[in-house]
């Protein structure tokens, strides 16, 4: 370095940080990309699925270079009973034919690749560096501290994930609250590709994504399953506040789910090779802090709590990439360090990230309906059992029988209240 001051220091080589560093470096900026893991992705856990439109926004065709796992062509929604399961299965090869599509991903591979791309464009990648603090000059953030070292820049991009320690150090906002996050835990289960493809009815480069409810002991939350190359990601995201109240350990609830006959049939013969945990922003727009910048600093990705969860669509990495791109564009177009923050907010609007967040802003209220996680899946399975049981006796009339199943699980007033709440949330 001719000058020991960078145009930008990006903290965190996840999807947000890599996207930002990649674009800045490509446009000729002097960028330092700092990562606390020994390699990018080594501290990261995701479900995970990436919607590739985000990589396409950064650079057309970029997703074709990325180490993606399987193209998702099968979307499944599973309602679990105690031993039974009702699954809605949407198969559509058209889902994967063109951008936008989605792929399962493994972060150790994806992030390492993405950080390498940024490096190839000229960014300086420094792995194994934990940022301890920020350098402040007057009202301005002027760089970072790591151990005894100080590194200076015009802008610090906080892409340090959901724990957002940097934004807290900068006094931008306080720690995320328990009711605004989900705690995700997952096992990676190794299985031969041919077995995965056969069990999920897909080709070897195609895959399935599954969400499941009825497996959380009634806690607000749900399970996920993604098929990768040579492995399956299987986990549950819990609302930690509700989990704390019921008293059973969440790792134990994951074991129940794994051993459920309908799940076990999919993973039998496999080997668990890793156990991970990560928090995810869970309430979308309403969880985003009011201030995402101050002079010399912008906050991106999970650190800014960008996330969309509709129950069916769970997004974080794509939004992180878009926010990283927005930060890069803001830095590129800012005329002074004071400009970058407000410009970043404008870019978030321009790139439609905030518009998308607003469109889903009430969705999380559906997850506040307690019956969604216990009674509804139970009811669905009991209704199926009624419909498919043949025992040689005179059957209960269909409508009467089904109403009986419904009444056993929920009252009419609950149905009306829940239905109204769900309608108001969509």
């Amino acid at each position, binding site marked *: 370095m001719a000058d020991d001051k960078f145009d930008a220091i990006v903290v965190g080589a996840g999807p947000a940080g890599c996207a930002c560093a990649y674009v800045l470096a490509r446009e000729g900026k002097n960028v330092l990309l700092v990562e606390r893991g020994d390699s990018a992705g080594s501290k990261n*856990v995701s479900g995970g699925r990436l919607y590739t439109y985000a990589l396409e926004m950064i650079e057309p065709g970029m997703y074709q270079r990325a180490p993606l796992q399987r193209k998702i062509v099968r979307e499944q929604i599973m309602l679990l009973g105690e031993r039974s399961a009702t699954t809605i299965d949407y198969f559509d090869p058209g889902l994967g034919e063109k951008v936008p599509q989605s792929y399962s991903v493994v972060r150790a591979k994806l992030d390492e690749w993405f950080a390498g791309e940024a490096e190839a464009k000229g960014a300086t990648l420094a792995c194994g560096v*934990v940022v301890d603090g920020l350098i402040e000059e007057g009202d301005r953030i002027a760089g970072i501290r790591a151990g005894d070292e100080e590194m200076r820049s015009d802008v610090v991009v906080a892409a340090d994930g959901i724990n957002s*320690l940097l934004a807290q150090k900068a006094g931008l906002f306080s720690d995320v609250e328990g009711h605004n996050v989900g705690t995700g835990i997952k096992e990676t289960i190794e299985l031969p590709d041919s077995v995965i493809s056969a069990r999920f009815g897909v080709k070897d480069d195609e895959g399935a994504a599954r969400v499941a409810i009825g497996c959380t002991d009634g806690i607000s939350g749900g399970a996920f399953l993604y098929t990768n190359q040579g492995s399956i990601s299987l986990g549950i995201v819990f609302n930690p506040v509700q989990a704390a109240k019921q008293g059973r350990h969440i790792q134990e609830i994951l074991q129940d789910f794994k051993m459920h006959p309908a799940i076990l049939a999919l993973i039998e013969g496999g080997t668990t090779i890793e156990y*991970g945990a990560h928090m995810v922003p869970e309430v979308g727009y309403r969880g985003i802090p009011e201030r995402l910048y101050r002079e010399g600093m912008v906050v991106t990705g999970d650190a800014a709590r960008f996330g969309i969860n509709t129950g069916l669509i769970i997004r974080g990495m794509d939004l992180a990439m878009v926010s990283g791109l927005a930060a890069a564009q803001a830095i590129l177009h800012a005329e002074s360090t004071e400009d970058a923050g407000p410009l970043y907010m404008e870019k978030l609007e321009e790139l439609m990230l905030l518009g998308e967040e607003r469109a889903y802003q009430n969705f999380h209220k559906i997850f506040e309906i307690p019956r969604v996680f216990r009674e509804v899946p139970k009811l669905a399975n009991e209704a199926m059992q009624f419909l498919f049981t043949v025992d040689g006796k005179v059957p209960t009339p269909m409508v009467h029988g089904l109403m009986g199943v419904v009444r056993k699980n929920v009252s009419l007033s609950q149905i009306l209240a829940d239905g109204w709440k769900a309608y108001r949330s969509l």
Partner: protein
Amino acid sequence: MSIKRLSPEESLALNKFAVDEGHPHIRVDKAICAICTDRACLVVCPARLYRLKDGQVSFEYAGCLECGTCRVMCSEGGVTSWNYPRASFGVTYRTS
């Protein structure tokens, strides 16, 4: 190997960890935990590193998955400091 129920210890044994001996990245004040009635940590720490021993909350930082849930869910301030492990220590995820 085949699929079986795993205890938290068995789950953690699958992971790659480098323990920073003598340098806990999370500090817990047991005197504060003693007056806490929520004790969410006992249930929500994915690694189950918070345990009840003789009625007291005990904490072990080796095996931490670095998620942050304990810090967020701590209601009385018993988690007095929460940082990431020093460089090259802590968990290294390979397939997550």
